[in-house]
């Protein structure tokens, strides 16, 4: 008897708490929508994305804008509806994947065509600001030594290599368009395949350095590229979907604020993004500190 009463009490109490919290303006995002003064900045649940969002936020604050941070929200399925409804005003995104989210059937793959298509695909009430030079996408990497030996800059240059080539990557790449098949079709480059199942991690880097593989698939913004003196090859044929850092903004971001963010994007190169990521991975610094240091170095604080 007393036990069931206790249970009933708990249920009622919990329900009341839920109702109260719902009434009490617990929706943390409601303050931003429609309120032209405060800019709500969001980020993905991805350390690199959080740093970029923090940079946007601090750059805006430095110019006297009010900012509300809603960082580490989750993945695209979770936050894009919040953007579309106007609850979030500014979000660092990536051109290719965002375009594919809005237009799954798109054929655009290269930097400029992806950006143009993305401008068209962006729903009313939102717009994409200038894309940064920085990319965060899969890429073919080689060691600097190998790149210099054969004078490699783009993937197409691999045709000059007369030694047999082996590509090391997760096993699914063997049958994907960006594996040996795509390399053959798009660039006419023949390569064998060696599965290494650590997603471009330390074993892949080791295999590159040991010359067990000459090519590997690693993210352009991965700090291990710089740390191990590796080189990302350019991809003029768009084997990998172009994925530049791009801010998505609501109408609450006025021209003045947009100019601030455009300045940030203009300064953000892939090298800069790698440095930011490296400080997070190696020095374990919080995003606010990394962002503040970078803005100060750019003279944007």
């Amino acid at each position: 008897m007393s036990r069931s009463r206790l249970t009933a009490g708990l249920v009622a109490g919990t329900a009341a708490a839920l109702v109260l919290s719902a009434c009490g303006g617990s929706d943390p995002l409601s303050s931003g929508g429609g309120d032209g003064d405060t800019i709500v900045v969001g980020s993905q649940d991805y350390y690199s994305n959080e740093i970029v969002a923090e940079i946007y936020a601090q750059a805006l604050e430095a110019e006297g804008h009010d900012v509300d941070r809603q960082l580490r929200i989750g993945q695209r399925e979770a936050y894009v509806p919040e953007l579309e409804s106007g609850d979030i005003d500014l979000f660092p995104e990536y051109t290719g994947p965002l375009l594919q989210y809005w237009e799954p059937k798109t054929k655009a793959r290269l930097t400029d065509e992806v950006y143009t298509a993305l401008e068209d695909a962006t729903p009313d009430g939102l717009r994409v600001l200038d894309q940064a030079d920085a990319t965060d996408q899969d890429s073919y990497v080689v060691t600097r030594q190998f790149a210099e030996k054969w004078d490699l800059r783009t993937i197409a240059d691999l045709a000059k290599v007369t030694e047999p080539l082996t590509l090391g990557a997760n096993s699914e790449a063997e049958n994907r368009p960006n594996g040996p098949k795509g390399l053959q079709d798009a660039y006419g480059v023949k390569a064998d395949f060696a599965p290494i199942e650590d997603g471009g991690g330390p074993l892949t880097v080791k295999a590159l350095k040991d010359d067990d593989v000459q090519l590997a698939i690693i993210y352009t913004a991965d700090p291990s590229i710089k740390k191990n003196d590796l080189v990302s090859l350019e991809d003029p044929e768009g084997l990998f979907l172009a994925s530049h850092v791009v801010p998505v903004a609501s109408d609450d971001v006025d021209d003045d604020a947009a100019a601030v963010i455009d300045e940030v994007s203009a300064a953000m190169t892939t090298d800069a993004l790698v440095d930011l990521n490296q400080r997070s991975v190696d020095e374990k610094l919080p995003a606010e500190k990394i962002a503040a240091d970078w803005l100060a170095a750019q003279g944007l604080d």
Partner: protein
Amino acid sequence: MSTFLDALAWILDPSSWGGSQGIAVRVAQHLAITVAAVLLAAVPAVPLGVLIGHTRRGRGVVVALAGAVRAVPTLGLLTLLALLLGVGVWAPLLALVALAVPSLLAGAYAGVESADPEAVDAARAMGMSERQIVRHVELPLGAGVLVGGFRAATLQVVATATLAAYTSDTGLGRYLFSGLKSRDYTLMLGGAILVALLALVLDRLLAVAQGRATGLARRTAADSRLGA
């Protein structure tokens, strides 16, 4: 359920078996790396186990060490070895050797130890050398347990040999890794079923061997009683 049926259909499809990526080649590779790992592990583990079982010395230390090795996660060890040795088949092979050692060691010393002390004393009283005692009394009497160690080690290694595909294009593990990353669950399940079947077949074969070895132990015991 339909994934399971698809996986069975994939295994039964003759076109899945041929070629350098086919089931036949991969089963052979899987079997080869399993046998190689168990035999390589037996080289140090069995003589050491016999020595410990016979002398009854150093057991505490070795059992503790073997227990510690058992606790080492094989994937972690494999990654560490691959960082030292580079990618290829050596790192997973050595990791599998480390996995097999404790079972083989335990089988060897427990087998030798299980020999009836009276039989051992009798052999010693008859003037047998220590080497002869090991060979003609303790090993035959403990053969069933010793083979049991091989059986346990083989079962662990054949199941874990899927990790060979982590750093090299070897064995049935490749179906699991490719299937997982590309969400081809039919392929993954098919690979898993093949590993399970291979494990069952090996276990049955070794169970028969263990039965024979135990029979040998019984006959040896009976002989020694007759002799005594």
